[in-house]
């Protein structure tokens, strides 16, 4: 291949947004809010040259939505996924969708898209039947061509049939192909974003180079709780090219060069007013418990706790803590906004194009039709880009400088400061096991900082009570969804607690779970995990350093097994092996799903062992990756992933489930290695040493 052709190939690979202008009319939007449009033309457009364009309001965050959604369309239309051009996250071109989060893409959107493709296939076959004068049953379909099976020269193509128009015929709900006829589902498919990403051609919001762009750096208060009062911008304005925009408490320094804008910002002297929260990263746990206490509500209650306690032979009471944690996407929040002819266009790193569109419309008091969000490749989301505060800053600034593209790219310090953290939380559990070591006689759980979401798993318990606070504004810092929100916090507590009960009663943790689990699917998954790992049952602590935990996100189930080595002099935990057995129903794209599981395990090794937001009052002390410690290569072990064979169940999402049991499995592994229980995520070397110190001396 000549270089020129190659580069064109790269560019084509990078064309996420194949259709730069809407084909024909405006996109078809739902008839009622919060619903998907029923017309398949909303999702699929066939251009005159026969290429199939697929329009979905989801975003490519790295999770592989672009590839797996193309697979589903290709499956129904008998194409190679490479023949499907994906247009994601453009609110002018794509039908409405929910945010790209909560593992919703495969659970919610995929069936709709697959149904649309199935209907399109049926319509195309009917059109071909008419053109070719042969019944549909006599036709074959492949690679965009339709022909008469008995006379292959009698053929037509998608392009000839549709001629770039909207397909007017509708057949209502058409069943997708049966699994037995599928040739793509369940197979490894090359990622559609690969070439663009390995050549540097992939465009993220910060890579747009719109002519005349000004880079805006926003003046930040030194602490949460404070807002801008006065600002002296004289020194900054002496730098040639600097412009200042102020909108209420938002003050931005604009310059054609991003680094000069940053330098100029440093010259602005601001004064701030307000009150910082009076709490820090040490006192936060008691703060949450105290503040939540009056608002505690019973969420779930079954049986009589007092009776259960009397029946218990082994009782454990423990408090589990979770620190604030950042999403720390490698791409900081970045947006470009342009206000032109009464319309705001935003190129954003967002997980939620339609939510952001509505937020922008509200911020500027515009109609939703006056706002267009164009999501770019997003450099990681994990829940951190569900809303777009950076994008809202960009539009407020852009609104004041019509016609000028404004880029707001947070730097790392801003990203760590302004993030919506995984909530700090305290989970207290008191629970008991009967003398036969086969029944949980009572389980009393109270949380502060999170909800009781996914707190229960399919375990038999005779008496339970789950309490959570209904206290608005409980947190002194901004919190939000962080991959499997609530679920991983609650699983850490629950699975640690079960492990502690098992150890105290002298029963091995797998046997105890086998006795408690009341769901055949979870039981099979537990067996699959233990067999694949090759774990010999023995009551802990065995010294082997192996820990097990189970978890769920909706119908997605996961069993995790971790093996660690603990350095008892330094307190450092080294993960040596990690396995997850996962049941998320039908796995459409096995390699993509595997990537999600590997990624979740890797990310949560950081969550469990090193990641923590340090703060004092409203000041976030972590400014960069020197103190906010993401897991590096040396922290990551061999990872094994095994999927349950459960093609009969509808596909569940995969972004969340594998996150859920990771910290618990690691904590249980630390216990198995040392006999010391770590109850505070992250279990840093200091916390491991503290736990070791609490061990009774022999």
């Amino acid at each position, binding site marked *: 291949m000549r270089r020129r052709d190659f580069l064109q190939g790269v560019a084509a690979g990078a064309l996420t947004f194949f259709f730069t202008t809407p084909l024909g009319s405006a996109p078809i939007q739902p008839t009622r809010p919060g619903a998907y449009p029923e017309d398949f033309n909303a999702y699929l457009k066939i251009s005159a040259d026969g290429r199939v364009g697929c329009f979905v309001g989801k975003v490519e965050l790295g999770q592989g939505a672009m590839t797996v959604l193309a697979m589903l369309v290709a499956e129904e239309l008998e194409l190679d996924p490479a023949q499907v051009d994906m247009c994601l996250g453009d609110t002018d071109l794509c039908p409405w969708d929910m945010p790209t989060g909560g593992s919703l893409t495969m659970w919610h959107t995929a069936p709709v898209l697959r149904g649309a493709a199935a209907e399109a296939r049926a319509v195309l076959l009917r059109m071909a039947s008419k053109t070719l004068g042969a019944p549909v049953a006599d036709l074959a379909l492949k690679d965009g061509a339709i022909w008469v099976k008995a006379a292959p020269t009698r053929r037509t193509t998608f392009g000839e049939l549709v001629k770039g128009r909207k397909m007017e015929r509708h057949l209502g709900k058409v069943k997708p192909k049966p699994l037995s006829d599928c040739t793509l589902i369940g197979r490894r498919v090359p990622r559609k974003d690969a070439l663009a990403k390995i050549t540097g051609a992939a465009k993220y919001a910060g890579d747009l180079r719109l002519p005349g762009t000004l880079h805006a750096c926003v003046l930040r208060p030194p602490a949460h709780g404070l807002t801008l009062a006065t600002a002296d911008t004289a020194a900054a304005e002496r730098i040639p090219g600097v412009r200042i925009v102020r909108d209420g408490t938002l003050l931005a320094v604009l310059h054609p060069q991003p680094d000069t804008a940053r330098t100029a910002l440093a010259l602005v002297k601001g004064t701030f007013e307000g009150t910082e929260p009076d709490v820090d990263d040490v006192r936060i746990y008691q703060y949450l418990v105290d503040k939540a206490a009056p608002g505690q509500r019973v969420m779930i209650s079954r049986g009589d706790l007092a009776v259960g306690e009397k029946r218990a032979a082994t009782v454990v009471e423990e408090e589990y803590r979770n620190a604030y944690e950042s999403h720390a996407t490698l791409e900081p929040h970045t947006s470009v906004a342009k206000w032109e002819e009464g319309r705001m266009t935003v190129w954003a790193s967002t997980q939620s194009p339609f939510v952001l569109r509505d937020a922008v419309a509200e911020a500027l008091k515009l109609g939703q039709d006056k706002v267009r969000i164009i999501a770019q490749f997003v450099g990681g989301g994990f829940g951190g880009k569900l809303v777009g505060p950076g994008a809202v800053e960009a539009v407020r600034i852009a609104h004041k400088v019509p016609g000028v593209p404004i880029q707001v790219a947070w730097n790392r310090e801003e990203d760590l400061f302004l993030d919506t953290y995984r909530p700090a939380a305290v989970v207290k559990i008191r629970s008991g096991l009967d003398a036969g070591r086969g029944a949980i006689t009572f389980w009393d759980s109270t949380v502060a900082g999170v909800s009781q979401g996914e707190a229960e798993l399919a375990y038999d318990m005779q008496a339970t009570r789950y309490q959570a606070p209904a206290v608005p504004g409980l947190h002194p810092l901004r919190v939000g969804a962080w991959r499997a929100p609530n679920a991983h916090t609650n699983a850490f507590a629950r699975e640690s607690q079960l492990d502690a009960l098992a150890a105290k009663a002298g029963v091995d943790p797998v046997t105890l779970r086998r006795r408690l689990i009341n769901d055949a699917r979870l039981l099979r998954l537990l067996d699959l995990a233990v067999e694949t790992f090759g774990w010999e049952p023995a009551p802990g602590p065995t010294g082997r350093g192996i820990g097990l935990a189970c978890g769920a996100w909706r119908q997605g189930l996961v069993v995790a097994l971790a093996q660690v080595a603990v350095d008892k002099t330094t307190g450092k935990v080294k993960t040596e092996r990690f396995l997850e057995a996962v049941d998320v129903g039908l796995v459409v794209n096995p390699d993509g799903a595997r990537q999600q599981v590997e990624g979740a395990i890797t990310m949560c090794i950081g969550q469990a062992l090193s990641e923590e937001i340090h703060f004092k009052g409203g000041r976030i002390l972590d400014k960069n990756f020197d103190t906010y410690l993401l*897991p590096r290569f040396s922290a990551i072990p061999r990872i094994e992933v095994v999927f349950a064979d459960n093609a009969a169940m509808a596909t569940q999402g995969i972004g969340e489930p594998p996150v859920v049991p990771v910290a618990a499995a690691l904590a249980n592994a630390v216990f198995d290695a040392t006999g010391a229980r770590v109850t505070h995520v992250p279990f840093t070397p200091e916390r491991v040493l503290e736990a070791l110190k609490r061990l009774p001396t022999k």
Partner: protein
Amino acid sequence: MDTTVSFVLNGKAVTVRSPRDRMLVWVLRDELGLTGTKVGCEAGLCGACTVLVDIEAVPSCSTTLGDVAGKTVLTIEGLALDGQLNPVQKAFQEHHAFQCGYCTSGMILAAWAFLKKKPRATRTEIVEAMEGNLCRCGAHVRILDAVESAGKAMGGVR
């Protein structure tokens, strides 16, 4: 103060008028339009901005324009030659050794610089070589696999 600095960028001589102490990452992205080099931390802590200067991997956020005067700079855009993907790029593609892709340019360049010197590296040596590059999506194991297999493809069979 703007000065004129010349260096070789992706095989071609370039001359840039910019302050000598301007960070290379901004010269590349802002001045020259090469946006494959990413900005992650601006402190040399994440490796997203890694480029090769005289075949050494350096963080371009902490390297000034003056530092590269008269030198040879290679960015991700210059790695595939005459339509041929570099062996490291090929391995990243085959192993799907990325998710969001934001760290990928830096990963590939760090790996290439390392493998040029030591294609017959052990897994431990690869881990050490890649330790300065962060990935948030958790593609770590695949990245290591890809670097290992690229080393083999470069003739570094152990």
